[in-house]
């Protein structure tokens, strides 16, 4: 019977990958994304050409309250130590993004404010592109709080808009200068630099490194995302194929040649392989950003392998459920609707993401890990946090594997009976009877 599973798998694979829709999706998607990125790059660089960042903004102070230290750069805020690493990574990414990234970099570096006596001289400097923006502080500023901004560009990333946060800091510093002590000024600007502690596996209070958590979670979250995409696309293809076979009545011939379980498994394997090939094509065509990301993300081979194991089991489990329930429908539309139910169930654990990340070994996370429906996504997240015990990983993989075998068995019975019923919607009692029938 194994041979027939392979024959079905091979046919499903070839007929899927030769479909126009699949080819367009597989090769068109990276091209589309590439074109899109190119467009952004083009727009970014054309903006940058017209509006080369000067890093400077002019201030015309009619109110006589602004205090400017010549040559000092005012940033958007003090960066906390633990975020600096992440910022460094962001700056690196921004640099590689070309001229558009320059703007982001400029934002991180800060703005130098230059004083002008009147609007005319300031605007003249603006048109000579010595400065990127002009701010006019009127006489009645203290009562009204109004400031006028002259911006060289209308772009969303213009220097005028970029300099607004630094201007706020400059004005707060100036307003408070003669009234409060300098260290209070800093505290008004940054009232709380929070260090967050939580209990680890051994019950000690430790600081959670946000940047590190984000890097370690990259792989599991990536797999969760891929899992949902794969399940949704494969189940769509699967249900389309099965409903065609049912509507065409080919299924009668097929079931007289191969048993329902081999047929179901063969279809899942074939479509799964087509899905993996699609992923491989996407990844290889998008090689550059992947290498960049890999440098930033902590890519542990163990994590990747474990996630891959959960991914494959989850794909088979959900694929089986979606196909079996989908086969009850009398036409493709019905089938899609029944199948959709499971796709939503697969995404369910995302609701608990906060609970799982804050307490990877808490009761909720553990319970969800042992329920096959939520196990794959929850376990991938827990593995990402680096705190899932090895025995739980082994046990949940085993539970999932056993569930796949059992589900396949019952699903095959349902699939076989459902496929031979034409145009009749079964009752729930009938469905259970079909699953019991040998």
């Amino acid at each position, binding site marked *: 019977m194994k041979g027939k599973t392979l024959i079905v798998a091979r046919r499903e694979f070839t007929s899927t990958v030769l479909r126009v829709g699949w080819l367009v999706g597989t090769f068109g998607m990276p091209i589309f994304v590439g074109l899109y990125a190119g467009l952004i790059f083009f727009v970014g660089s054309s903006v940058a050409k017209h509006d080369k960042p000067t890093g400077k903004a002019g201030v015309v102070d009619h109110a006589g309250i602004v205090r400017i230290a010549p040559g000092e750069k005012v940033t958007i805020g003090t960066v906390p130590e633990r975020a600096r690493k992440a910022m460094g990574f962001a700056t690196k990414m921004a640099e590689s993004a070309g001229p558009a990234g320059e703007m982001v970099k400029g934002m991180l570096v800060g703005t130098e404010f230059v004083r002008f006596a009147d609007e005319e001289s300031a605007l003249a400097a603006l048109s000579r592109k010595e400065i990127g923006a002009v701010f006019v502080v009127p006489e009645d500023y203290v009562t009204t709080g109004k400031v006028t901004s002259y911006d060289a560009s209308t772009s969303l990333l213009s220097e005028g808009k970029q300099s607004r946060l630094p201007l706020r800091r400059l004005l707060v510093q100036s307003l408070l200068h003669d009234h409060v002590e300098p260290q209070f000024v800093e505290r008004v600007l940054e009232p709380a630099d929070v260090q967050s502690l939580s209990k680890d596996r051994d019950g000690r209070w430790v600081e959670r490194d946000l940047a590190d958590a984000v890097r370690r979670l990259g792989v599991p979250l990536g797999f969760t995302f891929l899992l949902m995409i794969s399940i949704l696309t494969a189940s769509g293809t699967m249900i389309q194929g099965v409903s065609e076979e049912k509507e065409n*009545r080919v*299924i009668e*011939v*097929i079931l*007289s*040649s*191969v*048993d329902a379980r081999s047929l179901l498994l063969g279809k899942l394997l074939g479509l799964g392989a087509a899905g993996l090939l699609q992923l491989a094509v996407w990844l290889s065509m998008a090689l550059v950003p992947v290498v960049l990301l890999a440098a930033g993300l902590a890519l542990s081979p163990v994590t990747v392998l474990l996630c891959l194991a959960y991914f494959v089991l989850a794909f088979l489990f959900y694929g089986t459920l979606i196909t079996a329930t989908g086969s009850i429908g009398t036409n493709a539309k019905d089938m899609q609707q029944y199948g959709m139910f499971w796709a939503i169930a697969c995404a369910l654990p995302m609701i608990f993401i906060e609970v799982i990340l804050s307490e990877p070994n808490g009761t909720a996370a553990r319970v969800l890990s042992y329920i096959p429906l939520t196990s794959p996504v929850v376990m991938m997240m827990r593995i990402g946090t680096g705190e899932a015990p090895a025995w739980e990983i082994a046990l949940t993989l085993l539970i999932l594997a056993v569930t796949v075998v059992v589900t396949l068995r019952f699903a095959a019975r349902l699939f076989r009976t459902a496929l031979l019923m034409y145009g009749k919607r079964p009752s729930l009692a*009938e469905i259970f009877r079909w699953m019991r029938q040998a």
Partner: protein
Amino acid sequence: MPQLLVEDTVKAYDGKVAVDHVSFEVKGGEVFGLLGPNGAGKSTLIRMTMDILRPDSGRILLDGLPSTNANHDRIGYLPEERGLYRKYKVLDVLDYFGRLKGMKGSDVKRKAQAALDEVGLGEWAKKRVDALSKGMQQKVQIVGTLLHDPDIVILDEPFSGLDPINSRLVKDMIASLKRAGKLVVLSTHQMDQVEELCDRIVMIDRGKRVLYGTVREIKKRYAPELRKASGRGNVVLVDGEGDFTKLEGVLDARPAGPATALTLAPDLTPEAFLSRAIAAGLSISHFEASPTTLEEIFVHVATVDAAAAAS
């Protein structure tokens, strides 16, 4: 030679009995008719033979062994509901069907092409299925059924949708399968085809076996009952000179083509009528004892059965 044994088989869906203690036996080298009105349980029986469904009780044995998945490759099945992948090329569909039946290697397509040539569809091999007419698709389906050279062939209404020329083609094919010692099960409503092709038949009605045996035996057995049921005797066709209606024992006469159909009294056999006519000096150019047809028996049994079920 293959042998199929259905032994006291029962299958119920949702408490409704579809097949009710049915037994019969089929051997290689014979064409066996599986008859019955719509919904009688024929499809269920066929599906159980192929292990698509399992009986609730009783056994189905192939060559003395329970029918399992392993037998799939030995069986060629032409379902009543025809089905092909409409968007694929004819040859690719046949290749897939052949491989699912255990054919291997590169010669699957070669054999499929040869089989298509044989039924006159050689040039259509590379065309998409939906470019073919209904009759051509029907032939492709039959090619697919026989491609892997099965020893057991189950044909469900093989003549539906075929013109007389293609019907002849299928009849010749059934005859050659029989000669090759294959076991052929033919399920059909067309009684004239059954009389022409089948050696033995089983008739199922409301899940129960109501007729079983050779066509000749069944006719012989049911002729008197049918006569009794109609309250009349034999019917003979005669053509000749003279007034046949005047003869003793002739109850009724009506024209039937160039001849006349005469209904005889219940106790008068066709042979007795013939000698009486000769004795009376009538000249006879054509005489035919019009026998009971399988169709009459089929209708009779189905109606009697329905009446019994109703009461």
